[in-house]
């Protein structure tokens, strides 16, 4: 089946991102297609490369990046939510006149339309949040 995932909370503060990662892994192992993972609300904070969690704990952003590499996942950060919360890619940084960016490898920033498209194109949309 074709599945899409919506992540609505940032990493660590809530378990949502962890559960989304475990669910996505399991779905891939079962041979399902992940059409898209969309990050909305504080979920956009999953996509910062500036985080340095303690060595003895998991690194949520790296887990996403690794999964994206291995399975060619489409990790999309909502542009409107990202602007509110300070997640930038190079283009956005330029457009907003900011002096740097912080998006992590494997993520891209795009519009809310990508979430609706995921809802239209996928057999199931599963939401993780608070």
């Amino acid at each position, binding site marked *: 089946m074709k599945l899409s995932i*919506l992540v609505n909370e940032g990493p660590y503060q809530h378990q949502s991102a962890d559960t989304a990662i475990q669910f996505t892994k399991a779905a891939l192992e079962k041979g399902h297609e992940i059409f898209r993972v969309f990050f*909305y*609300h504080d979920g956009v904070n999953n996509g910062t490369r500036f985080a340095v969690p303690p060595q003895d704990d998991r690194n949520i952003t790296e887990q996403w990046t690794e999964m994206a590499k291995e399975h060619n996942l*489409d990790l999309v950060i909502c542009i*409107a*939510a990202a602007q509110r919360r300070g997640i930038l890619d190079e283009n956005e940084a330029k457009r907003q006149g900011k002096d740097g960016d912080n998006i992590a490898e494997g993520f*891209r920033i795009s*519009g*809310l*339309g*990508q*979430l*609706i*498209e995921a*809802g*239209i*194109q996928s057999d199931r*949309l599963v*939401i993780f949040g608070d």
Partner: protein
Amino acid sequence: MSEPWEDDELDGPVRKFMYVNRRAPYGTIYALESLEVVLIAAAFEQDVTLVFMDDGVYQIKKDQNTDAIGVKNFSPTYRALEGYDVEKLYVEKESLESRGLTTDDLVVPVQVVNNDQLAELMEEQEVILSF
């Protein structure tokens, strides 16, 4: 991967989307960012239904004035939904009543459904986005 929905608008399937709003406005951002999804979604010409239940009924309470809390008042936007052809707005009866509200308290015309009717309505959907 850029903007593939531009085609979908014309050729894609029409699916039954339901947006379930269960949280009060301002205490958290979910109400506002849910509304932003609904406005974008309108361009996709899907079959859209909005539900306000639990504390979500407070989202469409009349007379919101946010001057003193320093946050933008987004409640007028609900009145713009009709212009986007988003016209199926449901409110749960039990949620209204337990909060001492009636439809006269709301900024937009809505259909009132009870708990069981709402459960059936949810089962008729294809995609449910709950905020």
